[in-house]
């Protein structure tokens, strides 16, 4: 039995070594993880000479606490601009406030789940962006700090902000009257436009269309010269860049399936409007005459881009930044010389006014403080500082002289940063970072636009209307909204696609059946609910 004896020692030794190795590897990770930079000493900060006392006239102390204090802040990570620990603006903020912000980056793909779990287990980070409905609901339940008791004494800027924007306060006030987060500002502006191949328009001698009929003629002209291509393409049918929203707005004046109508000031259902059938017939015509890409309903982003880049399609509706992106990518690919994607104005049927709603004035989320934060006063003071002129300048613009300057009066990002410097500002400095900065509008205004982008702005701004005021739904209304809106949207999109591709003929009985089914799925209920909520908002703001 030699083998057993020898292997006894071997076996024991092997077991011992394996367990030790595992413990070591397991624990080595922990040390790395827990040795984080809490309570770093101010000596770490360099370059304090550039932060001369005269900068911005900061003579009053903005310190939130006597000793250095650290707060954790949850941020969705951006792949082209990952969150870093060494952003200069937060060193400056630390110098001014004694508050070190430790970011907890979460992969943007899973951030919603993570936030939900944190809220459900009451283990949210000290600072976090939450959707307004969640702030109202869970703030009420004690997950988020009620700011109202601290505002008067410790947060003058938050107080002024809510006085200037009572709608913002309404968005984050819970049923018990507590104020649970601070919504961010987006600034007025528009996001989407028609994109067309300018070079081909010039080559074929075409004019920008004003009405759907003119658009149809233009698409036909494209088709005649490119018989095997589909001139019009869109990335899907739903959402902000889908085909249906822009077409419905052109024919019915309602931007989407259920939306506020600018003239009447009421929420309406697009299906109720007589122009609805016209829009379906129009899209059906485009589809039948092969002017619309037959796969319009299922294209994803990469496919859409490919069709535009290779010249399989020439006209589309998308984010205004895509004009430049498409032109640049096409130049890089070198497949189509002279490729120039440019914007053209919205179209509208006769009797319908052209318009586009601006982006919402407030962000979809606001910064909330955890109810379990250790130093509540310091946290509120920090949030207040970040909302102040100085703090929001750091978050939105950066460091004076390094990322922006006021040489032209209004602050503008430096030319040396290059055109469209979003990734650089976000990645290297942490400026204009979503869910950190409270004033995205300020950053947008400081952007230097290329001539082309400036022309697009000037083309569209006359028709941009301020976005509908954000609705504050009660908890029951929120439940109904969650329950019904999604199903209704899915049904509408499905049915409309059937009409457009000709699977279901566009006849009066079919349309009638469609509208009835929509009402059954809750269309009218939702409209009434939105109008009631709107009435409430108007009453409280007047």
């Amino acid at each position, binding site marked *: 039995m030699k083998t057993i004896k020898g292997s006894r020692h071997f076996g024991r030794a092997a077991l011992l070594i394996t367990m030790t190795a595992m413990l070591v590897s*397991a624990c080595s990770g922990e040390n790395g*993880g827990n040795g984080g930079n809490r309570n770093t000493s101010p000596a770490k900060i360099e370059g304090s000479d550039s932060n001369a006392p005269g900068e911005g006239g900061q003579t009053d102390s903005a310190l939130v606490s006597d000793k250095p204090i650290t707060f954790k802040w949850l941020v969705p990570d*951006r*792949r082209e601009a990952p969150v870093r620990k060494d952003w200069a603006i937060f060193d400056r903020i630390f110098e001014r406030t004694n508050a070190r912000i430790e970011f907890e980056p979460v992969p943007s793909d899973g*951030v919603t789940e993570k936030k939900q779990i944190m809220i459900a*287990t009451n283990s949210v980070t000290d600072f976090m962006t939450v959707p307004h409905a969640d702030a109202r609901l869970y703030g009420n339940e004690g997950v988020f700090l009620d700011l109202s008791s601290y505002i008067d004494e410790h947060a003058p800027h938050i107080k002024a902000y809510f006085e200037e924007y009572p709608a913002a306060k309404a968005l984050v006030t819970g049923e018990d009257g507590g104020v649970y987060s601070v919504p961010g500002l987006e600034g007025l502006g528009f996001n989407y436009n028609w994109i067309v191949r300018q070079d081909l328009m010039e080559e074929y001698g075409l004019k920008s269309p004003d009405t759907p009929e003119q658009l149809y003629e233009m698409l036909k002209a494209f088709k005649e010269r490119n018989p095997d291509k589909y001139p019009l393409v869109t990335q899907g049918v739903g959402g902000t860049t889908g085909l249906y929203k822009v077409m419905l707005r052109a024919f019915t004046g309602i931007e989407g399936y259920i939306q506020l109508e600018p003239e009447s000031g009421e929420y309406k259902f697009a299906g109720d409007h007589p122009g609805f059938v016209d829009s379906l017939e129009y899209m059906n015509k485009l589809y039948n005459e092969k002017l619309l890409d037959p796969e319009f309903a299922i294209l994803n982003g990469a496919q859409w881009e490919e069709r535009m880049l290779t010249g399989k399609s020439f006209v589309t509706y998308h984010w205004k930044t895509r004009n430049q992106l498409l032109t640049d990518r096409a130049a890089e690919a070198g497949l189509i010389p002279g490729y120039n994607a440019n914007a053209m104005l919205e179209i509208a049927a006769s009797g319908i006014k052209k318009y586009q709603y601006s982006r919402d004035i407030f962000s979809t989320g606001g910064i909330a403080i955890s109810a379990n934060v250790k130093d509540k006063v310091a946290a509120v003071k920090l949030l207040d500082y970040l909302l102040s002129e100085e703090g929001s300048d750091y978050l939105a613009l950066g460091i004076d002289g390094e990322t922006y300057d006021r040489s032209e009066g209004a602050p503008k990002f430096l030319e040396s940063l290059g055109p469209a410097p979003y990734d650089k500002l976000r990645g290297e400095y942490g400026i204009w970072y979503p869910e950190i900065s409270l004033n995205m509008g300020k950053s947008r205004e400081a952007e230097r636009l290329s001539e082309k982008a400036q022309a697009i702005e000037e083309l569209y701004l006359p028709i941009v209307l301020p976005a509908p005021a954000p609705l504050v739904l009660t908890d029951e209304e929120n439940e109904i909204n969650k329950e019904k809106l999604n199903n209704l949207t899915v049904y509408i999109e499905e049915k409309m696609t059937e009409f457009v591709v000709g699977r279901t003929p566009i006849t009066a009985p079919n349309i009638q059946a469609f509208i009835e089914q929509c009402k059954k799925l809750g269309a009218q209920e939702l409209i009434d609910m939105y109008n009631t909520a709107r009435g409430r908002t108007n009453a409280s703001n007047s």
Partner: protein
Amino acid sequence: MKVSWSSRLFDTGNVLFMLLLCAAMIYPIVFVFSASISSPALVSSGQVKLMPQGLTWIAYERILALPELWSSYWNTIRYTVVQTALTLLVTSMMAYPLAKRWLPGRRIILLLAAFTLLFNGGLIPTFLVVQKLGMLNSIWAIVLPTLVNTWYLFIMRTFFEALPSELEDAATIDGCGSFGVLLRIVIPLSMPVMLTVGLFTAVGQWNSFFDALIYLNDRSMYPLQILLRNIIIAGSGSESYVDEGGGTFVETVKYSTMIIATLPILCVYPFIQKYFVQGSMIGGIKG
């Protein structure tokens, strides 16, 4: 041996069919590799179909320059090794006694284990347990909650039951304790099932993403999958920020990341494939 004409025809058809299937399976991998070394603009334009065009290494440069890549890789390897080793040890320690028919309370324990096959505490209660035990933001939150998988437990138990008890009697006569019998007799004989369970656990842990997402807070602890998802699946958050910016993102980094993340598994798999095949026959009759 004479091969009939129809048999030859069938063989030809069969081989052609299999070749087609192979091509269909191999094509995505070849495409991902080609795209990873092609010019990003050409890939976006859909010009790259099989062979790389506009050769460039920029995608690899970008991903290899990320310091998170190496720490994520190390984390994934660490979590996988620890979890696999512990799973094998603990599962076998639980399956072995349950394989003995004379164990008192055996039925009850087996029923309790089977119960967990059907029911599960749910996400929030599990999270609360992990949180209260202080395991958040540590390797144990990744390893311990999913340590013993009931399926593997049953597979191992079945396998152990099939081992002849005479072997163990012989070892006991020679002075082996229970632990000794397990470690020195049973486990070496159970290499197929050990390797199978070990492989499945390792692959499962290599791919796991959700546990790491909810239990870990520090980016330095994140495994590779989180980095992958961040790069490959564009953020689903507020649209406006997805489109404002992202201009410098090299699209083909997605593909180079895929190659880098799956390369180890691709290299190791051919060597251990035979154990997978053997292992899947575990439920069959043993001679």
